């Protein structure tokens, strides 16, 4: 229906629907069914979207890295399209993560940003991948654009653990806060549902966005039209 090469044109839409359903149910449980946490009260509920977003942001970036590596080896355009999609979705999720983190931090620590290593690394990652998207916008030649952004993605992704450890170290000298990592057993259900919800949404977004990239590429690589046919 949309793309000649695609055998399952409806698949992304099904996954999208599933994602919305899971996210809706998981959020409902997280908001209204799960009891408030002992120490932090209602604010804890933010974790039910924050943690799933974090998992999926990292997943998107990892997938972008994998696509980049595969593209450099195989020079197959579809991996470039998928990488572009994964980077864009990853940027959106990373941005979301920073917003959620700030909303969580304000009531908890009294400041909008507490230099938590994971969140700070996410911010750096956000800028790094935004830069790669900018690079793609400014390079016209598709082959160069693909190769360069693949190289940049690999370099940025390798940097992630290094950034994380250096920020953690840098921060540990000043603060000894515990991060909001532990969620006790009874709260797993909304967390899992939202995790799957965002996973499905992310997958659907990547599939659809990759299709957009793929179609644009086809248009770019197509031979120029004969003069008489130009609109």
């Amino acid at each position, binding site marked *: 229906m949309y793309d000649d090469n695609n055998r399952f044109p409806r698949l992304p839409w099904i996954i999208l629907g599933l994602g919305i359903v899971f996210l809706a149910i998981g959020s409902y449980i997280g908001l209204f069914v799960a009891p408030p946490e002992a120490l932090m009260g209602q604010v804890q509920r933010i974790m039910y979207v924050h943690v799933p977003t974090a998992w999926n942001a990292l997943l998107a970036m990892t997938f972008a890295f994998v696509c980049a590596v595969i593209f*450099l080896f195989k020079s197959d355009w579809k991996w470039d399209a998928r990488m572009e999609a994964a980077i864009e979705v990853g940027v959106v999720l990373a941005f979301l993560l920073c917003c959620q983190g700030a909303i969580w931090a304000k009531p908890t620590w009294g400041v909008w940003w507490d230099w938590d290593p994971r969140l700070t690394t996410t911010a*750096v*990652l956000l*800028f*790094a991948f*935004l*830069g*790669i998207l*900018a*690079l793609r916008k*400014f*390079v016209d030649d598709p082959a*160069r654009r693909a*190769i*360069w952004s*693949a*190289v*940049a993605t*690999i*370099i*940025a992704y*390798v*940097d992630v653990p*290094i*950034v994380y*450890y*250096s*920020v953690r*170290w*840098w921060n540990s000298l000043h603060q000894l806060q515990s991060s909001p990592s532990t969620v006790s057993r009874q709260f797993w259900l909304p967390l899992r549902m939202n995790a799957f919800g965002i996973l499905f949404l992310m997958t659907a977004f990547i599939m659809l966005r990759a299709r957009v990239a793929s179609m644009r590429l086809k248009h770019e690589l197509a031979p120029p039209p004969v003069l008489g046919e130009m609109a």
Partner: protein
Amino acid sequence: MLTAALRKELLLQWRSRAQFMAVFVFGAAALLLFSFAVGPVAELLRQFSAGFLWLGLLLSSTLTLAESFHAEMENRAMEGLLLLPSNPRALYYGKAIANWLQLTLLGIALIPVMVVLYDAGTTRVPMLILVIALGTAGLSAPGTLYAAMTAQVTSKQTLLPLLLFPLIVPALLASVKATSLIILGDPMNQVRSWIVLLASFDAIYWSLCGLLFGNVVEE
């Protein structure tokens, strides 16, 4: 192969030493501007002197790095160089080393400016130079790679810092921290750990960028 490339680069840099002077003045001006941002409070300035030095170096590095491929771009020599039997790796390391040397020199030249403006003197000068060398190495490796990319693009001015700055955050953190400890005092001898972090960052990026450089300049 590498020595030939390196010799060519150093010759090019020597020929454009006026450019180096200009970048130095830019860096010194940046350090001055930072003090205006904070105010004439001696203790505060001394506290942040390491940060200012490295921010000044970082900003200056975008000028140096962008210039480093200028010769190639002017005469479209990039393709010509690749037709020579030398491999892209030699070209990369030659340029990266030359850029590194220039940045280290710049850092050392800015030390007296820092000492004067921020009252940030120290007796541990060899250690300070080591930190500057390791930190600028961290800037030079990815910087040279991205300079090669962005030299061939129209909006190179914005793209180079945009791509480089998030990447070198660990090198920046470690360099500032180490420099700060050297200037302000280091009772628990933490400098060594930061230097190890810097050295590891350098090792990883000098190998990774060299490996990937071939992809960036091939036609």
